[in-house]
């Protein structure tokens, strides 16, 4: 501890200043640096996905084909879907915030397997670049769902390469999930009992379970598609006796739980932000914690609701419908509890809080419209229409992306030790919120009117809604740019902040510096308080 005296005047070495070479980043096993690597890579993927969306939104502004050829349009929406789902939505919160925060929040020096963690990032990049290669070298036009036999026999595009890319990336999710489960089980600091864990950790834990158990099924399924297409094996192709509906079962067995892989970490973020900006313990902590596990569990048994018109048996559909409604209950509990947390709180509408409240509003709409799709008779009408497109964007973008931005703004000062411009951050949040609603709300109406998804040209009846949607998309894009500029500017001109600028509870705010030390903590960590104890005066000392 003899360097303690030195640190009085010289700034302490933190994880950001611990080496500046490219190698010190690319070979770092520090979970915080790996989190930043994910942040950079993922932002690039997100930008590409957003550009693809902007292009086909432009095309869809009018009913005729006027900007893009049909083939280009198909390749763009496929690229958008694959990039956003596999390279943004799934890894965003676990890869960036999870990596950065899970060890710090539980009082550990690192994740259980730091080298494996770095390997996960490389696997993610390898998969991402392979998929990107497939998109650049001619593209892929199957939609992100890779439905057979179109993908395995008929499509004339880079299915094998893209499928391989997604397959590779799957192992990144599996290994990250495995790492987090072990870390949360075995690496907690003394006194950090399960019931003292922040809800963000509970959410990461539930997500990781789905990652470890669901992703391998997607992996083998995509591998079978690659074999069928590349080697001519008969697996799903009816011409060889195969059943294309089996593909859908295997695909959705992973891809429905994947929805929870995307949204559960968002739930975790929302719990942290609401607690901090209303200075209250999350109402019904245990219910919120266990509802994450309940969602993860039941979520494995609802996949068939994607297939009500696929020719699966009506009785299977009946069971899937019932279970889908059940999964809505724990979700409803979470929303009620977040709302109740605000009651008699001390509420501040900071930028992360605006994103979070935006999340609740949009996720509510997403969840409610989910009921329309869980109901069998209405599902038959609405499935494969724009209603579904709007529904899952309300959940994935309105829910997950808003939560991700909430989390990014919330922990930004912790990650980089700098405060961003609060005014512009709020403007960004507001523009994104309104732009989002402009983009996707009209699609509910178009969908109920019968407009099928993935249409390049369409009936004039739907044009007003599509025009609104396109206008909204560009508004939303503007909001995202404001957000990006605000955050990047903060690194250059932002005011330095202390350990706990928001006076939040949690080890990351109270025991770690901003930005944290390479080993996270400079003193031994012992937990002696419950989660979200906002009456603990120690949290108000440092800013």
């Amino acid at each position: 501890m003899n360097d303690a005296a030195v640190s009085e005047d010289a700034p302490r070495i933190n994880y950001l200043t611990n080496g500046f070479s490219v190698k010190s980043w690319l070979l770092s096993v520090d979970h915080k640096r790996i989190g930043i690597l994910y942040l950079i890579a993922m932002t690039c993927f997100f930008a590409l996905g957003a550009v693809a969306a902007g292009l086909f939104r432009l095309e869809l502004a009018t009913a005729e084909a006027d900007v893009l050829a049909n083939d280009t349009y198909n390749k763009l929406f496929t690229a958008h879907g694959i990039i956003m789902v596999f390279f943004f939505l799934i890894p965003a919160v676990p890869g960036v915030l999870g990596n950065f925060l899970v060890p710090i929040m539980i009082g550990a020096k690192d994740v259980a397997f730091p080298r494996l963690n770095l390997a996960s990032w490389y696997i993610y990049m390898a998969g991402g670049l392979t998929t990107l290669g497939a998109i650049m070298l001619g593209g892929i036009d199957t939609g992100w769902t890779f439905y057979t036999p179109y993908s395995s026999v008929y499509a004339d595009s880079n299915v094998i390469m893209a499928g391989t890319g997604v397959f590779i990336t799957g192992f990144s999710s599996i290994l990250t999930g495995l790492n987090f489960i072990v870390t949360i089980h075995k690496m907690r600091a003394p006194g950090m009992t399960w019931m003292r864990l922040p809800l963000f950790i509970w959410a990461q834990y539930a997500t990781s379970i789905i990652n470890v158990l669901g992703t391998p099924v997607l992996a083998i399924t995509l591998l079978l598609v690659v074999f069928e297409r590349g080697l001519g094996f008969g697996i799903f192709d009816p011409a060889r006796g195969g059943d294309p509906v089996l593909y859908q079962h295997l695909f959705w067995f992973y891809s429905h739980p994947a929805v929870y892989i995307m949204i559960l970490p968002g739930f975790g973020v929302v719990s942290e932000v609401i607690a901090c900006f209303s200075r209250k313990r999350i109402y019904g902590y245990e219910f919120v914690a266990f509802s994450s596990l309940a969602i993860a569990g039941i979520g494995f048994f609802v996949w068939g609701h994607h297939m009500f018109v696929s020719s699966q048996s009506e009785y299977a559909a009946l069971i899937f419908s019932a279970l889908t409604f059940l999964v809505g209950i724990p979700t409803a509990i979470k929303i009620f509890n977040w709302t109740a947390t605000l009651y008699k709180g001390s509420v501040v509408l900071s930028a992360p809080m605006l994103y979070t409240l935006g999340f609740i509003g949009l996720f509510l709409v997403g969840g409610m419209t989910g009921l329309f799709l869980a109901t069998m008779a209405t599902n038959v009408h609405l499935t494969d229409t724009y209603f579904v497109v709007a529904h899952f964007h309300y959940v994935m973008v309105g829910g997950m992306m808003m939560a991700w931005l909430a989390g990014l703004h919330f922990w930004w000062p912790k990650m980089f030790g700098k405060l961003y411009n609060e005014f512009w951050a709020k403007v960004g949040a507001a523009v994104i919120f309104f732009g989002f609603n402009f983009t996707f709300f009209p699609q509910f109406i178009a969908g109920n009117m019968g407009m099928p998804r993935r249409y390049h040209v369409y009936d004039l009846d739907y044009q007003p809604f599509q025009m609104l949607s396109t206008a909204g998309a560009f508004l939303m894009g503007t909001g995202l740019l404001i957000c990006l500029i605000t955050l990047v500017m903060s690194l250059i001109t932002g005011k330095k902040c202390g350990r706990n600028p928001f006076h939040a509870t949690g080890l990351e705010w109270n025991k770690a510096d901003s930005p944290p030390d390479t080993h996270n903590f400079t003193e031994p960590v012992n937990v002696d308080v419950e989660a979200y104890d906002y009456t603990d005066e120690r949290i108000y000392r440092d800013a």
Partner: protein
Amino acid sequence: MSHATSDHAHKPYQQHHFESMQQQTQSTLLGIWLFMAQEILFFGGLFAAYTIYRILHPAAWEAGAASQNLLLGTINTIVLIGSSLSIVLAVHAARHADKAKVLKFFSLTLFLGLVFFGIKYVEYSAKWDHHMIPGIRWDDHHALHTLQQHAHAGQHLEELPSGIQLYYSLYFVMTGMHALHMIIGFGLAFWIMAKTAKGCFNEEYYPHIEYFGIYWHFVDVVWIFLFPLLYLV
């Protein structure tokens, strides 16, 4: 810095981010079991496809299984069980820090693995000769002829049963994935043997050997499932 505050001495093989050796051991063991869980789900997708197609095309499955060489399959099963036993003995030797024995039993495991591949090669090449590899080398006429020759007594095949290509596709994917896991196992085994030879392990620290044992047993168990499903039905 935080090291200075720890009141216990670090063993050289304890990684700095763990507080104690016990924590490290428990963590890696849990990690290995979780990895096995995902492996089960990975093969689970294949078993699901197998089950559904077998229900849809029972005749193809019967004819396909009858065409397999039961003798070679049985020998291979015994060979793999032998290799698993050999790994058990290697782990036992590691517990007593008997470096020579560890290396000996690892070699034996690898040798048995090679025997397995040799037999597998004979089986695969027979399929190649009979034009029974879907998509790559398949001929209805040849395939039918081979199936008729191997059909069980009292069973007469007029034409190829529907879904026969599915059976062979799944046969190759499942045994192929199993073989891939064995090849990965070979790589791991060489690495561990090198570490053993360098003297990285002692009687209280030999996790790599133990975990390799778990992995190899898993690969063995997959075969124990594949063998009856593909050869016996």
